[in-house]
């Protein structure tokens, strides 16, 4: 049906923005998060006040109060909303309450990172203690060949029968391993849902289909990513690009309203075995062999990092992507300010543009500071 006719028939009705399509205001551009379809649409922030008017005025009343030019703009914006199926025209708004914004998870720790470089850790103790915390997802990141494919198999075996449901690995390429070796490990360890091999001889992807064929293969297949880039340390983390933005969903949207998208319910073991909120963050809570993870997690100083919300971070609070961005508290644009935006974010909400974060004024000098003072900065004071 043509928009003109839809609008003409709906003059006595309210414009209902579906409750799972949530508007988020930004400085220059604002966004609608479609939590069911998992997509974000952006539009100029000048239109954002309309959502408030939609709740108090019927369409005909709105059009009557607007000037000719404004009516044309409203018409155009409604066309955008209707064509994306973000709105419907209804007699009453009351039957469509907002989706509750509460968030919780059935675990004390939702995900964990283990970094490995020159030394091995007590994986059995770590996994056992993560199990006690109900940890669901584990990622191991290895910067050197110390952590072998065989170690990965052992770690996957340790995770079986525990609360850990998925294991992701970023490991260093070992020329003695063939493609079949990698495929064999992934195929025989279903808990392994992601494998990236860095420092490889060429960029490519190896498909693993678990023996499935045709359409079923599409459903279960995963790809092992081989990359020539080298992962050297936790300093290589914290990158925020368009690709890193979350596909919106109600659980993540609600979580990011109340908690930090990266650190909430996370625990990390850095490459030296120290327990931290994140391997790249300054504060250590002790060596994993001399402490109990559950004791650390129960402490208020460890949990304080979980509650650093995007709404409280400078610049990010003006960004329309703040509920789709998992943030980074390890590397800040201003290392001396706890509420500074992430250093490695390339988006500027004041100009609505993406760029390489390294090209921002001062970014290179700040990064050099982090490189020199690695693990010395008390980014978050407990």
């Amino acid at each position, binding site marked *: 049906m043509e928009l003109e006719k839809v609008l003409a028939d709906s003059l006595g009705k309210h414009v209902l923005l579906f409750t799972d399509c949530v508007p988020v205001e930004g400085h220059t551009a604002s966004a609608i998060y479609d939590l069911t379809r998992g997509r974000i649409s952006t539009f100029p922030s000048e239109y954002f006040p309309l959502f408030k008017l939609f709740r108090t005025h019927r369409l005909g009343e709105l059009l009557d109060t607007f000037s000719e030019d404004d009516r044309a703009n409203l018409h155009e914006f409604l066309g955008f909303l209707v064509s994306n199926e973000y709105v419907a025209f209804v007699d009453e708004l009351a039957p469509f309450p907002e989706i509750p914004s509460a968030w919780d998870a059935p675990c004390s720790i939702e995900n964990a990172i283990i970094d490995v470089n020159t030394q091995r850790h007590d994986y059995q103790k770590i996994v056992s203690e993560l199990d006690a915390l109900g940890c669901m*997802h584990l990622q191991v990141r290895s910067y050197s060949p110390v952590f072998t494919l065989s170690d990965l198999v052992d770690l996957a075996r340790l995770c*079986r029968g*525990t609360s850990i*449901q*998925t294991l992701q690995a970023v490991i260093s390429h070992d020329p003695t391993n063939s493609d079949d070796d990698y495929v064999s490990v992934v195929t025989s360890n279903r808990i392994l*849902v992601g494998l990236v091999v860095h420092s490889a001889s060429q960029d490519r992807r190896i498909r693993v289909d678990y023996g499935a064929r045709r359409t079923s293969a599409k459903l279960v297949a995963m790809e092992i990513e081989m*990359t020539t880039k080298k992962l050297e340390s936790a300093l*290589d983390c914290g990158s925020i690009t368009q690709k890193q933005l979350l596909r919106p969903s109600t659980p993540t949207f609600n979580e990011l309203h109340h908690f930090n998208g990266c650190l909430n319910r996370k625990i990390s073991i850095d490459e030296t075995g120290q327990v931290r909120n994140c391997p790249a963050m300054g504060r250590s809570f002790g060596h994993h062999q001399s402490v109990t993870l559950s004791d650390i997690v129960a402490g208020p100083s460890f949990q304080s990092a979980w509650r650093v919300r995007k709404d409280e971070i400078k610049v990010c609070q003006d960004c329309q992507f703040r509920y789709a961005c998992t943030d980074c508290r390890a590397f800040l644009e201003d290392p001396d300010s706890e509420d500074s935006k992430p250093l490695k974010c390339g988006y500027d909400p004041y100009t609505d543009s993406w760029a390489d974060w390294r090209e921002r004024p001062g970014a290179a000098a700040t990064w050099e500071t982090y490189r020199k003072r690695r693990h010395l900065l008390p980014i978050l004071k407990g």
Partner: protein
Amino acid sequence: MSSDLRPLSLPPFITERLPLGYRRIFVNDDILDDEATQRLTLEQSKYRHVSTYVRRPLKPISKVEL
């Protein structure tokens, strides 16, 4: 359908008031072995979903530059 298979006898089902849809089950004595006639107890891990269903994390655990 193999001619070796014989349909289940219906009267026991009618007596037990079981749904007659069960008549679609055919049996063959040759394929019945000890394992098929014994009640099995499956060993399940503490978290069954580990072996039966693999979910994905809803968000990236880290954001490495690769």
